[in-house]
């Protein structure tokens, strides 16, 4: 794997100097291909106080193919699918937008910014997006409820 040295380097960087609010570990110390990240809900967002487990899977073509992201903690958010996959729709992770020099730390930073500022026009959960746009109060309420229920 061409990316081995690269992945090691990335991992070392992320461990010594993690993106704000994140801690990263390997799911299995012998497997460089699956990373576990825990992200704190950004302050000033309904998710504050929550801790979100995010699994990052590196395809064997990494970094030529983008990593895959999956929320293991349920989150009430227009851009995260409300199912087992917990997929997040990020432009950066689309095959035609991903560039090999992009790093996982960049992805995590982007994820956190999307948590802080949902993008309802680019939603995977249309219902939640509509609520976010039209009835921000109830959206915040449900999102906070979910933090208490799933993300403590």
């Amino acid at each position, binding site marked *: 794997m*061409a*990316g081995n*040295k*690269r992945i090691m*380097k990335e991992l070392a960087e992320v461990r010594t100097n993690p993106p704000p609010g994140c801690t990263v570990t390997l799911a299995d110390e012998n497997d460089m291909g699956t990373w576990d990240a825990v992200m704190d809900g950004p302050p000033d967002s309904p998710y504050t106080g929550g801790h979100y487990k995010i699994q990052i899977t590196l395809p064997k*073509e990494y*970094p*030529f*193919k983008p990593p895959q992201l999956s929320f293991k903690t349920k989150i009430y958010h227009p851009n995260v699918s409300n199912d087992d996959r917990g997929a997040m729709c990020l432009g950066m992770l689309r*095959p*035609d937008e991903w*560039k*090999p*020099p*992009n790093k996982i730390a960049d992805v995590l930073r982007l994820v956190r910014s999307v948590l802080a500022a949902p993008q309802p026009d680019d939603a995977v959960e249309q219902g939640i997006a509509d609520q976010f746009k039209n009835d921000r109060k109830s959206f915040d309420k449900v999102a906070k409820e979910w933090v208490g229920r799933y993300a403590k």
Partner: protein
Amino acid sequence: MRQSLFAGRWRIRLPSSLDGAALRVTKTPPVTRKRKLDTASLSATSQPPPEPKRKASKTTHKDSIAQVEAALPATPQTLTSDKGMDSDDDFASVASSMELGEELSSSVDFGAEDSDVELEDYQDDDSAFETHAKQKPKRKAFEVEYKVYSPQDIQDQQDKQVAEVAALLEQPTEQTAILLRFGRWNKERLIEQYMDNQEEVLDKAGLGQNMSSNPPRIEAIDGFMCDICCEDTPGLQSYAMNCGHRFCVDCYRQYLAQKVREEGEAARIKCPGDGCNKIIDVKSLDLLVTSDLTDRYHELLMRTYVDDKESLKWCPAPNCVYAVECGVKKRELAKIVPTVQCECKHSFCFGCTQADHQPCPCSLVKRWMKKCEDDSETANWISANTKECPKCHSTIEKNGGCNHMTCRKCRNEFCWMCMGMWSEHGTSWYNCNRFEEKSGSEARTEQAKSRQSLERYLHYYNRFANHEQSAKLDKDIFHKTEKKMTLLQSSSGMSWIEVQFLEAASQALQQCRQTLKWTYAFAYYLARNSQTEMFEDNQKDLEMAVENLSEMFEKSTDQLAGLKVDMLDKTSYCMRRRVILLDDTAKKLKEDVWEFNVELA
């Protein structure tokens, strides 16, 4: 039977043989010189027309009678062979049987003939392209002009355009090719933009200025670390375009391989640099793309040419490499159903690339398919098992024994049997015999109305689905036909050419069923008026013709030989009915005569 055989032979051979020749000569100027000479010498020597006929019937045995019959209507080819017969009988019979076969297939296979015609009709500046055609002066209303291109044609076409624009812009051809791909092959717009702001266009297309003076090359740079693989071995070979994003050659190559092989990109691959939109130019690609990728890469480049042009489309048939050019624009699709046939014989709609769906316009096809997807089975079930609440029209399934229904939605209470209000039932609980009551009969009328639309849909859907199913069975028939043809050859001593009528019939069946199928989708969206009635008459005629022909395939092999003429007749009748229906429908579509019960998008 024998009578009609006989009559048919006489009727056709005698007058029409000369008519046909005359027709062909006046209608189609560019016949080959040889044929012209033949027909000319024929009329010059003024051979009496009955002569060859008598000769044929006198000299030939049973088989050649069959051949002759196969030749209806007679054409110049038969005349030439007849002429030859004077000098050399053996030669003539060989020649005529060959030509008859040819004639047979073209007289039956309308589709093939039509496509040839359009190829030649098409006038374009790229006259260099190979066309294989006879000319037919007038096109039917349901036919469109189109051309089929081989991969080589497409390549040539690109090269030619590149050369043209290169001369105009005074740019080397490779750069021009990049510019054209960048401009999605819109020559005029590209030239205009280029004239307006040369530098901007060059820059956007990924052709920075000092490309020619200081071309990028693969080199080793001191202290370089590749941002992708994090290698920093001294002497590491690396490459950067003039945007300055430098990566090691291995990573660059892998990046390109990924794009070319996995993502199918070629003309618009961006620099791997983070956020850099510079397109990798051909020179860089040539330098970097490994030899095992070049074929795929060039194929993809060619693909973008077809993909970028509105007037070009790939044939959607699996593994087909041809592309079709047709001038019909998207906005015209409400007026015309542009059906084209590829070299590979696949007929498809140029508008939506679905299989041939004449006479139904694309938008109705889309609507219909969606409706069928959602509805067909459900609708059948609803029709069989449910009624509607007389008040709110919710669909209700009766799942228990009692006739006293309470609508879950509007709480209306009614009797399942008479559909009347339950309150009027008085004491006749669970024993409805109140058919004459007013509320009941009104409710039933209402119900009937709403059910009617469902039944209407099912009427059309069932016929549509039936023809689709039959068309699939026709495929089986076709395979059986092939076997029958082989059997016929051995049992009746007929030659391969002579049993072709079966294949022709089977092909005609398929084509007509395809058309019929879509007439039902079309009719579903037609408003009721006299035009629609005419359409349905045409539809009925074609349907009857098709079923008659279809029935003949059930006959046993030993009967088939004797049915040849009948089958040929029925085949050509089917095709005629199809042409009549399509022509009429297409004309009215063009002239906006049809009244639809939906918006034609």
